[in-house]
């Protein structure tokens, strides 16, 4: 399953140049890396959001593969429909190619408004891969909070102010919710190294049945980071254990990245302007402690699930 980057430099990505995603955005990198190792032709279904809007400003489409967008909350149902058509037409001898089906949704269209549609598609056991590019907010409409937004983040519908330290709730564990559908492959990853996203998505797409990959990606504008820090911030997310990197294959949990040192959560939060308020004044200390406590507790849960210990 190991991916060698060099093998893919001449392979055309399903996503072309000329898209309008922001400079340094993590989403197109995730798309390029994720689909790099997929050998079969793919059809992409995309929920409304940054990726959808910025790659298909009519008449300029950045998709080299068949692509369809209908609405925000229904990528799960959308990919179900295309896959159902494929199965039907293949059975009737009208198609003989092997084609794979990939749905993209942001955390908005996946964790929140699109959760039902995703759940239904997973439950039906159809053969598709759903990739969530998770930048922790409804970024396309101006960084409103989603259930994936980190605790303490300044989001435009849970702003930090004199009466608030930002979003009060910790992020929803969607990957676990998806795993509870008992589908054959579930993974959580980020752009922290050169190959993890490519390997996990390849495995997801090649696994028959429903598969899900939750990829944490930065939003340069609304995380408030320098665009060049794309990989760095993802590495911090993994190293601080804010975003554990793991996969679940047929119900068996496997931790695929174990940080070598204990890195405090502040290291992930400090480079991001959306957490700036947590480093001013005493009032935010409590919030920082809560965030660290959440990370530690959730990490322990992952360790237990994966049958791992962590001595640092």
């Amino acid at each position, binding site marked *: 399953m190991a991916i060698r980057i060099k093998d893919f430099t001449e392979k055309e990505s399903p996503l072309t140049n000329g898209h309008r995603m922001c400079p340094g955005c993590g989403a197109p990198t995730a798309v390029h890396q994720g689909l790099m190792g997929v050998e079969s*032709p793919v*059809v992409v*279904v*995309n929920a409304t959001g940054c990726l*959808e*809007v910025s790659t*298909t*400003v*009519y*008449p300029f*489409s950045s*998709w*080299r*593969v*068949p*692509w*369809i*967008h*209908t*609405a925000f*909350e*229904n990528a*799960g*149902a*959308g*990919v*179900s*429909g*295309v896959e*159902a*058509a*494929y*199965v*039907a*037409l293949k*059975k*009737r001898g*009208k*198609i003989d*190619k092997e*084609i794979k089906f990939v749905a993209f949704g942001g955390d908005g269209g996946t964790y929140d408004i699109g959760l*039902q*549609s995703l*759940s*239904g598609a997973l*439950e*039906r056991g*159809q053969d598709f891969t759903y990739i969530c590019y998770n930048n922790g907010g409804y970024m396309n409409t101006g960084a409103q909070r989603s259930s994936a937004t980190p605790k303490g983040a300044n989001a435009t519908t849970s702003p930090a102010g004199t009466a608030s330290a930002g979003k009060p709730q910790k992020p929803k564990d969607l990957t676990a919710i998806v795993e509870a559908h008992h589908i054959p492959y579930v993974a959580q990853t980020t752009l922290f190294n050169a190959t993890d996203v490519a390997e996990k998505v390849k495995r997801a797409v090649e696994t028959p049945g429903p598969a899900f990959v939750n990829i944490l990606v930065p939003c340069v504008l609304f995380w408030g980071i320098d665009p060049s820090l794309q990989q760095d911030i993802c590495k911090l997310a993994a190293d601080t254990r804010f975003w554990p990197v793991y996969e679940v294959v047929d119900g068996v949990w496997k931790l695929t990245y174990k940080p070598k040192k204990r890195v405090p959560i502040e290291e992930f939060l400090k480079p991001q302007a959306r957490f700036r308020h947590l480093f001013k004044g005493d009032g935010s200390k409590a919030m920082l402690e809560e965030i660290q406590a959440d990370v530690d507790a959730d990490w322990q849960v992952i360790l237990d699930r994966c049958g791992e210990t962590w001595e640092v």
Partner: protein
Amino acid sequence: MPRREITSGNWAFAEAMRQINPDVVAAYPITPSTDIPMKFADFVANGKVDTNFVTVESEHSAITASITASAAGARVMTASSANGVALMHEIFPIAGCFRTPIVFGLVNRCIGAPINIHCDHSDSMAERDAGWIHLYCEDAQEAYDTAILAIRLAEHKDVLSPVFVCQDGFITSHGFEPVEILEDSTVKAFVGERDADFPLLDVDNPVTYGSFAMSEYYFEIKRQQVEAMKNVLKVYDGVAKDYEAVSGRFYPKLDRYRTEDADFIVVVMSSASGVVKDVVDELREQGIKAGCLRVRMFRPFPADEVAEILAGAKAVAVLDRALSIGGTAPLAAEIKSALYDCGKNIPVQSCVYGLGGRDFFPQYARELFMDLAAGKVSREERYLGLLE
């Protein structure tokens, strides 16, 4: 040989679906259309069809999956009613825009609140602007025939638009009556195979559906949909004649019942037409020149033909089985508009009846005709069968 059986509107529609054997059906149950996916599931389970039947988890997902399957190149059918149709509202215009020729069994039931499972047209009327063709069926035979005809109409290259085949909830959908069912081979030959223009599954010729279209393009894309609807008016009769050739039954856009020399015409849709037609016959016996115009095609609305039919009347009443609260009821609005555009200043009485399944009795029709004859027509909306 065609066979005759006693069946319901729902089962007749499902039987048409069996004979059409679409590639994909994605459907969710809701009273009173539930029988359609249930009957169809039975066909699937017993190998009577080899359709890919997707048991989606909501109506919104049903219509979404239907559109993406159709855009992928599959022939798709589904069914729903009432609040299920309302839940699909967001997505219907997308089917219209993408030109996906879905045939949809819309079993008319009122939209809540109050929650009520019985018939009125508030569900389909709320979708009259979505870019779908609307055909309203009077009885189970018509529902069966229209389902089959609609496939050819929807997939016609100059049309390529989705179709609602409407029938009255419970009244038609659950009422049992004799229906002539064509032979499987006749239906199969009539509908043929779908030849999709820009299928997603043609991976060698990738297409992008659902781009973000700014103000420089949106209007033009919509104008094309308007043109497709205009084309329906041109091609429909040809498709209906082709259907007549295999079935012996011709379904016009507008069903004229003794309207040619009528002084007083009642305009109505779906099952209540039967009541009106009976009363027309009664009144004709008494020397009153009554007539009934049953509108079968509501979208596109054949305004010119309607105006022609009503041109000679002294007074017209329009029966709407839906309100447009705060405005003119949908069918009445179309009728008044058609007459106005043709310079016909005929008095039109707008009436609303049958909401939430309230029965429509012959005496309401009788009283209505008598009022028209007595010149009792006003611009005030009237409510037939309301306690007042």
